């Protein structure tokens, strides 16, 4: 115990002593370079975790939600624009991004403890997971949807009558947001008993 304390003390003394033999320029440059490397590595790691391959590296994500995504318009459509997991689930703003990554530790926890490692467990937990996503999208006014679908660029005359009627009404007035009316656009819906749909 004494030895360890002594070692720490020594280490601190070395660290806290001003550098006598190194020039200020050297310190600034190495500091800058290592900062860049660290920052770059950090961002690369962040980008890597935004790929679809990363998300579906866990079978929990691949076998359930990814399978279902494939038959939807967000996977294949006439214009060839694709939405991947992170487009809808990971915020673009940096601070929000970090917050989401912190939250994602829940998923690692879930992976380790197998919270949804069978289809049955997934089905049973699905409503709860979906509710988290609905709450998040409701709170940010469907920000991720709006990153691609801009209200101002919607041409109501080119939409179906049913769509134009709702978009020029409850959406335009701000009374409702995309996720209020468009649940289940990318995956199958869980048991919806008591959840409000397009109306009300």
């Amino acid at each position, binding site marked *: 115990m004494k030895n360890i304390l002594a070692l720490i003390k020594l280490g601190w003394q070395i660290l806290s002593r001003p550098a006598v033999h190194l020039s200020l320029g050297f310190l600034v440059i190495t500091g800058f370079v290592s900062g860049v490397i660290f920052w770059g590595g950090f961002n690369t790691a962040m980008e890597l975790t935004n790929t679809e391959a990363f998300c579906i590296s866990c079978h929990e994500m691949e076998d359930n939600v990814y399978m279902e995504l494939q038959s939807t318009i967000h996977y294949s459509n006439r214009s060839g624009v694709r939405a991947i997991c992170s487009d809808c689930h990971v915020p673009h703003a940096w601070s929000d991004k970090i917050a989401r990554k912190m939250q994602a530790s829940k998923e690692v926890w879930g992976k380790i403890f197998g919270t949804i490692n069978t289809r049955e467990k997934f089905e049973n937990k699905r409503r709860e997971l979906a509710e988290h996503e609905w709450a998040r999208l409701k709170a940010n006014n469907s920000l991720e949807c709006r990153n691609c679908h801009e209200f101002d660029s919607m041409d109501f005359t080119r939409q179906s009558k049913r769509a134009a009627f709702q978009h020029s009404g409850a959406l335009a007035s701000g009374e409702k947001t995309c996720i209020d009316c468009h649940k289940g656009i990318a995956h*199958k819906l869980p*048991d919806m008993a008591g959840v409000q*749909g*397009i109306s009300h």
Partner: protein
Amino acid sequence: MFKIFTQKWLTGCFGLGLLGLSLFVSGVSNAQAQDVQIATMRDNILLTEEVAPPAIAKVENKDLKRMRDYPQQPPTVPHIISKYQIDKNVNQCMDCHARDKASDVQATPVGVSHYLNREDEYQAGMSPRRYFCTQCHVTQTESKPLIDNVFVDVNDLMKPAAK
């Protein structure tokens, strides 16, 4: 003793007769099949030949209700429905077509018949018999019918025959 004999004998006769009849009928229909031309979707192309399939017709999405050919007809669906889920978890049609929701989206509420159970009693909720909407309600495509439709509207049927 005598009674049983007649019963067996009768059944035997009946069986033989049935066999004869069916042989006769199948002979007749075989003969017919040879000279009747049936229009098939393959359009007389041999099974061994491959042809380019016709383009998949687009589902009409005009949001205009269509005429019903008779009062009890399940109306055809005037909008696309491919993305709506109908299973044990949810019936998305009822998001818009339930009595208490239809006015919000200006949809037709499901008819009263959809609330009847099999004892013909009205229920508060939709009858399970009507849960799978697409059993009876179908979309229409922008395509030409493959064969002529000879259905006659009851109103035309009642018109005095033209001279």
